[in-house]
């Protein structure tokens, strides 16, 4: 087993195109680590440098106790799973999984034992003699995971291994990958652009943008305490509401003058805000889950809104409500909706939970409080 240490790593293409500069990242032994970000953020490049598929322009990558900069991919004791599974279509599932062991001249009885063991983990025992071309997409992906797994690597690298699958199959594979990691205890580095996938799978997540890590943390940390506006808006579905606000003082209290109306700043936030000089106002982020819904005026901080769109999801309900021209996304706690029979055009009152809101600097967009 092995952890991974990335120190001051730079990736350049040619002379001038720097895609990653001074990247530092420590992935612990046995950890499920996700690299998350939109396309072009450098997450795959980082993974490919760990794998040895991309040259490292500067800095060091360490797997376990070894610096691997100059070690070819096959010497790094890693296994990699890609979005496209690249199986041999004319071979059977068994032959595909056994392929890399045969090359290594491992006795066939041992190969059989190993293949059967990994096939059992992913419930592919019954398909070992099937031709790959006869399998469904989810099964093919499982074969490619088996093929990686059979080598017993210390580190698993996965690059969007399930992003092209249908949503339902994706959810199912997600659970299987997680189950697998919990059982074999290897270090997993998993690249994805899908925040739900990262949140569900990871012990820790690094969120990347333009080659720079924005934040590293557990799912709970990046959700409840985003480091900046980008992370706040990228994590969470539906995404955070952002409001540009002025701050006003009245009778010793601080108020946010927001597009949805005036909001009294909570005592905790007040202390922090008072310390920072924000004459131009702040950017406020409010999660849809942190807005309460009432059928009647609920007093301070509650503002009248009109329901524009109702998004039922079976086990919960998302509302888009209009206050003036501002559209607010709300994912209220279930108890708020009990007994309310909501329709489009209905009037409701929205009240942000003021101790849950996020403050960002308007120009740098980093978290203030």
């Amino acid at each position: 087993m092995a952890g991974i240490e990335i120190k001051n790593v730079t990736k350049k293409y040619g002379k001038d195109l720097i895609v990653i500069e001074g990247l530092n990242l420590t992935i612990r032994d046995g950890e499920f680590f996700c690299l998350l970000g939109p396309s072009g953020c450098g997450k795959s490049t980082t993974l490919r440098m760990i794998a040895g598929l991309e040259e490292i322009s500067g800095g060091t990558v360490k797997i376990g106790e070894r610096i691997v900069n100059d070690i070819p991919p096959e010497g790094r004791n890693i296994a990699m799973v890609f979005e496209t599974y690249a199986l041999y279509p004319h071979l059977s599932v068994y032959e595909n999984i056994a392929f890399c062991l045969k090359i290594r001249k491992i006795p066939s009885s041992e190969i059989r034992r190993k293949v059967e063991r990994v096939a059992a983990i992913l419930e592919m025992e019954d398909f070992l003699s099937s031709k790959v071309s006869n399998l469904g997409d989810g099964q093919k992906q499982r074969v490619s995971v088996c093929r990686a797994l059979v080598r017993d690597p210390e580190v698993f690298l996965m690059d969007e291994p399930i992003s092209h699958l249908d949503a339902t199959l994706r959810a199912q594979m997600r659970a299987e990958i997680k189950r697998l990691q919990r059982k074999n205890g290897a270090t997993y580095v998993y690249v994805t652009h899908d925040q739900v996938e990262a949140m569900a799978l990871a012990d820790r997540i690094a969120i990347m943008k333009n080659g720079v890590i924005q934040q590293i943390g557990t799912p709970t940390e990046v959700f409840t305490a985003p480091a900046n506006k980008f992370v706040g808006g990228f994590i969470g579905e539906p995404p955070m509401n952002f409001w540009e606000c002025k701050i006003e003082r009245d009778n010793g209290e601080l108020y946010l003058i927001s597009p949805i109306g005036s909001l009294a700043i909570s005592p905790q936030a007040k202390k922090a805000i008072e310390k920072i000089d924000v004459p131009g106002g702040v950017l406020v982020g409010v999660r849809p889950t942190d807005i309460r819904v009432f059928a009647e005026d609920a007093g301070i901080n509650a503002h009248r809104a009109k329901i524009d769109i109702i998004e039922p999801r079976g086990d919960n309900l998302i509302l888009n409500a209009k206050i003036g021209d501002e559209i607010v996304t709300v994912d209220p706690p279930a108890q708020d909706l009990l007994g309310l029979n909501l329709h489009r055009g209905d009037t409701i009152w929205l009240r942000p939970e003021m101790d849950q809101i996020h403050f960002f600097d308007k120009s740098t967009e980093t978290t203030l409080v």
Partner: protein
Amino acid sequence: MQGITIKNLWKKYGEVEALKGVNLNCEKGDLFCLLGPSGAGKTSLLKTIGGIEEVFSGEIFIDGHPMNGVSPQDRDIAMIFENYALYPTLTVFDNMAAPLRAPKRRHSYSKADIERVVKKTAKVLSMEGMLDRFPKQLSGGQKQRVALGRALVRQPKIFLLDEPISHLDAVIKHQMRTEIKRLHRELGITFLYATPDQLEALTMGDMIAVLKDGEIQQSGNLQQIFDSPANTFVAAFTGDPPMNLFDGTLKDINGDLCAITESFTLPLSKNARKELVKAGHVTGVTVGIRPTDISTGLLEKCPIHGNVLFMEYLGKHTVIGIEINSTLLKVKVTDKTGIEEGENIGLIFNMDKLNLFDKKTGMRIG
């Protein structure tokens, strides 16, 4: 009937049967979603309705008029696909105006007409400020809006959308979902929307038809699909995570009818018992329960318990993966519980929300 009616529709590509006797009623003005995995027949269905592909047998009616033999241009239908194929050298305005300038319609639209229609459509799509831009200056979501606009300038009666937002990023996807819903409401025309994404279908559709292997598995509104799935396929295809399903047998234990699965034994309600009697010779059942209909409880108080394999923290919800023997079960909770991986916990099933299916056929009982 107003809207779209489809009767016993078959579609074949050579030997391959893409649609096998599809029946469907889509009311005028509805946003009707076709939900299913790839290869289910969603696109084939849209294409036959649009008249781009011929039917093998069966009938398609629009507002009561038979469409078999009517050319696509005369069906008053617009269709939009996942890839938007805009003209890269034309501005947003010219891209949207293109259908009105087509030779066939050239004489029906004056320059002023075109300007009026395009601007009105752009306004609905919040693209008024971008009419002079070129496609390469637009984001993915904006390009898709231009494609929607181009289809809409013809003011069709029916709008067919084939996975229009499948390839967009999650954040834009959420936005576009809401926008398409708003658009549908403002235009007041029928939308038929195909998607493999259950969340899209459930959140957007007034009605949803779940398709698999060219056959409709169930048509209904969200509540019907979610609460009473017609079979195990629909149950396992909807919800995030989807419904938990366990195969079991029926047995009388001290006068109580119980479903015995590999992992636990569940006494069934009187109602379930009645339905089983009605269904006749059922020995094997598949028990289904949504992850939100299971709660966690004290170990010593619950006859059903399992080992916490993983916790998925998703913000508002947490999904707990629990292993009972070798079966993986998922529970979705909203409160931040103190549960930890590796722990043994008790489980409480909301028995009113239990679904029973015939194990052999997969069909719903009751």
